[in-house]
């Protein structure tokens, strides 16, 4: 009898413990996001980066674009223009439309860089259309960048964590880098009169945020992550069997921008 009494006592204790810890944990869960909301900071999207003030991060960032998922909505282009106030007619990122007819001829267009989306089909194609798809383009962040090599004043450079950036104070706007880039990712900014291009949102990444185009993509066609993190999606995509390719591999630039399901027609 005494044993049973003891058991009941134990059970009660365990029950009270469980209820108490449950309540505390539950209330904490409700409090923590509310607390984060108060200081107005955006929740961290890349773990362990915010607050790191060393000049270079230890991460090895890669960007993957899934061509098979892209719906050509142009969210990325809109977000990019919003983030940087890119002057009209210049594009840091853009979405190309490829149309292949049944004679295997390829037609590429990109009205306003995909900023207004694709609302009209192409009417100038003589034969029935076999296939169409969208290809988002941005800076390839080459491991051997030709733009850095040609800069006469050291205004464009590759950081140790793999970003190629343009120093706006140093750039003289000669345009060598614009010609050297095999991917046409650069343009001459008409406002600052310096070379400009996609930075993979360096300022956001350093704050632990995803690049803005990755953040807004509704179909998750743009993926950004750290190759050193073995649990990240990009690590799994790049290290496990997938059809992954880069643009113009023959140029030898070794881009860190990879494409998933890229077609041979794409240049």
């Amino acid at each position: 009898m005494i044993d049973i009494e003891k058991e009941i006592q134990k059970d009660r204790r365990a029950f009270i413990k469980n209820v108490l810890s449950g309540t505390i944990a539950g209330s904490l869960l409700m409090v923590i996001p509310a607390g984060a909301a108060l200081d107005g900071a955006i929740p961290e999207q890349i773990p362990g980066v915010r607050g790191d003030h060393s000049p270079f991060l230890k991460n090895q960032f890669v960007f993957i674009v899934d061509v098979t998922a892209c719906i050509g909505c142009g969210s990325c282009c809109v977000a990019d223009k919003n983030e940087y106030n890119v002057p009209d007619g210049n594009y840091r990122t853009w979405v190309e439309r490829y149309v292949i007819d049944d004679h295997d001829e390829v037609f590429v267009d990109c009205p306003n860089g995909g900023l207004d989306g694709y609302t009209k089909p192409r009417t100038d194609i003589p034969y029935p259309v076999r296939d169409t798809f969208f290809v988002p383009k941005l800076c390839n962040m080459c491991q051997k960048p030709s733009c850095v090599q040609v800069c006469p004043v050291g205004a464009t450079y590759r950081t140790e964590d793999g970003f190629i950036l343009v120093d706006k104070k140093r750039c003289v706007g000669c345009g060598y880098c614009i010609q050297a880039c095999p991917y046409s990712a650069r343009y001459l900014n008409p406002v600052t009169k310096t070379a400009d291009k996609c930075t993979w949102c360096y300022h956001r990444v350093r704050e632990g945020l995803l690049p803005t185009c990755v953040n807004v993509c509704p179909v998750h066609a743009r993926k950004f992550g750290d190759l050193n993190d073995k649990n990240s999606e990009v690590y799994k995509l790049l290290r496990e069997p997938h059809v992954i390719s880069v643009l113009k591999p023959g140029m030898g630039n070794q881009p860190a921008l990879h494409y998933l399901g890229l077609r041979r027609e794409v240049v």
Partner: protein
Amino acid sequence: MEKEYKSKYYSHVVKIVLIFIVVGVLAVVGRNYLLPDTMGQYGHYRGSDLEDQRNVEVRSHTNESCFECHRPIRLIHKAGVHKTVSCEFCHGPYADHVKDGKYVAKLPVKKGMEIKELCLRCHNKIIRARPEESIKVVAMPQHLEEMKVQVDHNCNQCHMVHDPLLWIKAANEMMGMEMKGDKKN
């Protein structure tokens, strides 16, 4: 007597050497004066530019930032199939609305046929490049005819823009009907 041909005067050599030294000193001093201090700190570039690059303003936030204040729409938006669509895509960047935690200006809310344009930017079947697993597409006048509504109807008359199937699901529930998609599953 070949030695006599050699000049005993070295002033021209001294002049040239002096000119070289002066030019060299000027070049070194000028270079130091003209180059930024942090040039070459990490490589052949201005090291302090890294700091400048980090200080670029973050203008676009995430949906969560919007939902902090816009609570009612949060419940609707996050429950529907449009949960992956960015608020800022239709309404504009966060920084134009809130600056340093303070309200600055009203962001546009799309009205009338602007909404239809915005919907068809993604859901237009006539652009054939859209993978069906990613998005549901409709051909425009045909969809209205199929659904037996007037052809001048706007999308948001049947579809709640933040959760396109919200009203349709509710209506179907009231009528005791099943969704088209549900049958397949």
